[in-house]
């Protein structure tokens, strides 16, 4: 399979594998393997389930979060569902930071990631329903060079089979990496903003500050979020950043949404959602 990937280059080299229980299909393109996974073996009337696109990335390469950072391109998934089915937002697990020469900061994933969405079946689903669920995936994968890639993956799922969870560990692992609200974990307070435009936020944890804490701002139309600094001591993490207004922009008050990433005691990647109100400049 790896050899196929090497020869296919940027081109989409789709291989459809319908695994009986897992109901997964997968595809291979340069340096990234994609597969579509479902959380159920069969659809149960009135019960939402998960679809996830798992991207497996060659060692030494990375793809991008929904905010790529200073450069790069967000990884995107577009689901196409049978009539009557609806999808929630695409959920991105807590990313990592990549710092390239020239102080270029990027946010993304290496090794593997799963982008997920919750699917709600229609209320009037017929008992003999069988349908095709599709995902179109687009990414930019970079190491010393960057390569655009895309793939189309799909799976067939019905409502007449035995209902049991599938891929449970995979979904549990990745859903736990979706950023959560801070409740119970940490308290967040604004500390200061100074004349040079630097903002400070303090996070007081309910336990000693975890390892690998990092701050991932979502993309904003009118600001570049620059000079991100994160330091932790005892139970406190201090975050500083500078929201730089793009020239010629005149936004009103707005909210900066961000993810505070960290590793839990077992070394699992986790994230908290922070919202920072920015006054009109």
């Amino acid at each position: 399979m790896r050899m196929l990937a090497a020869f296919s280059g940027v081109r989409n080299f789709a291989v459809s594998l319908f695994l009986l229980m897992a109901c997964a299909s997968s595809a291979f393109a340069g340096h990234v393997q994609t597969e579509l996974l479902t959380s159920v073996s069969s659809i149960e009337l009135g019960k939402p389930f998960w679809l996830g696109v798992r991207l497996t990335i060659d060692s030494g390469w990375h793809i991008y979060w929904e905010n790529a950072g200073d450069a790069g391109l967000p990884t995107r998934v577009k689901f196409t569902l049978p009539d009557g089915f609806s999808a929630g937002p695409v959920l991105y697990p807590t990313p990592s930071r990549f710092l390239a020469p020239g102080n270029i900061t990027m946010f993304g994933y290496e090794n593997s990631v799963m982008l997920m969405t919750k699917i709600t079946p229609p209320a009037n689903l017929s008992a003999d329903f069988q349908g095709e669920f599709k995902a179109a995936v687009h990414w930019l994968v970079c190491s010393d060079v960057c390569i655009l890639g895309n793939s189309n993956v799909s799976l067939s799922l019905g409502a007449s089979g035995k209902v049991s969870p599938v891929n449970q560990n995979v979904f549990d692992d990745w859903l736990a990496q979706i950023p959560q609200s801070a409740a119970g974990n940490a308290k967040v307070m604004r500390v200061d903003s100074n004349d040079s435009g630097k903002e400070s936020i303090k996070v007081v944890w309910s336990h000693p500050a975890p390892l690998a804490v990092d701050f991932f701002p979502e993309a904003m139309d009118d600001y570049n979020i620059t000079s991100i600094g994160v330091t932790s001591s005892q139970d406190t993490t201090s975050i500083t950043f500078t929201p730089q207004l793009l020239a010629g922009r005149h936004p009103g008050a707005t909210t900066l949404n961000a993810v505070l990433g960290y590793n839990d005691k077992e070394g699992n990647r986790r994230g908290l959602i922070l919202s920072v109100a920015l006054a009109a400049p």
Partner: protein
Amino acid sequence: MRKTHVLASLLAVVAVALAARGFADESGSGIAIGSRAPDFALQDQDGKTVSLHDFAGKTVVLEWTNPNCPFVQRHYREKTMQTLSDQFKDKGVAWLAINSSFFATNDQDKQWATGQSISYPVLNDSSGSTGHAYNATNTPDMFIVGVDGKLAYEGAIDNDPTDEKTGDKINYVHQALDEILAGKSVSVPQTKPYGCNVKYKD
């Protein structure tokens, strides 16, 4: 929870009053729109030294480029840069491509320029010094220097990172050059560039 001092509520919306927003931040978006564009002296694909001050009194477009980057390749395939530079050449607008990749060589720049029918200099900045002076982050990353030597635009070539737009596509460089030549102020002087990160040496 132990300490009860001035902590805001969980998942607080943190009120942050924005103080004056400068562009002095060195790790941020580099030189400010309206400030003087740094001079440079770099070799083109034929080994000839080209400086920004050679074009004093002209409007100059600087295009950060990397022939290996798929975003650059797409714009050359679509002839975005070649067409735009040709269109404004007779109106006193100079165009310089700058390759700050650590692996850039004059020979490779020449081979690429010939293959793409590029009529403007492709400058070798493999040391990255000019890229750093402008804080160019992406390929492509576009800068326009006005006749006064000051930066008039910085950012993306257009509003279409994923090459999907048709009717609502805006080429920001085209728009800014039109406005500059009409004696107007640039309505969108800064956007977020998109593309590959510039492959700097350090």
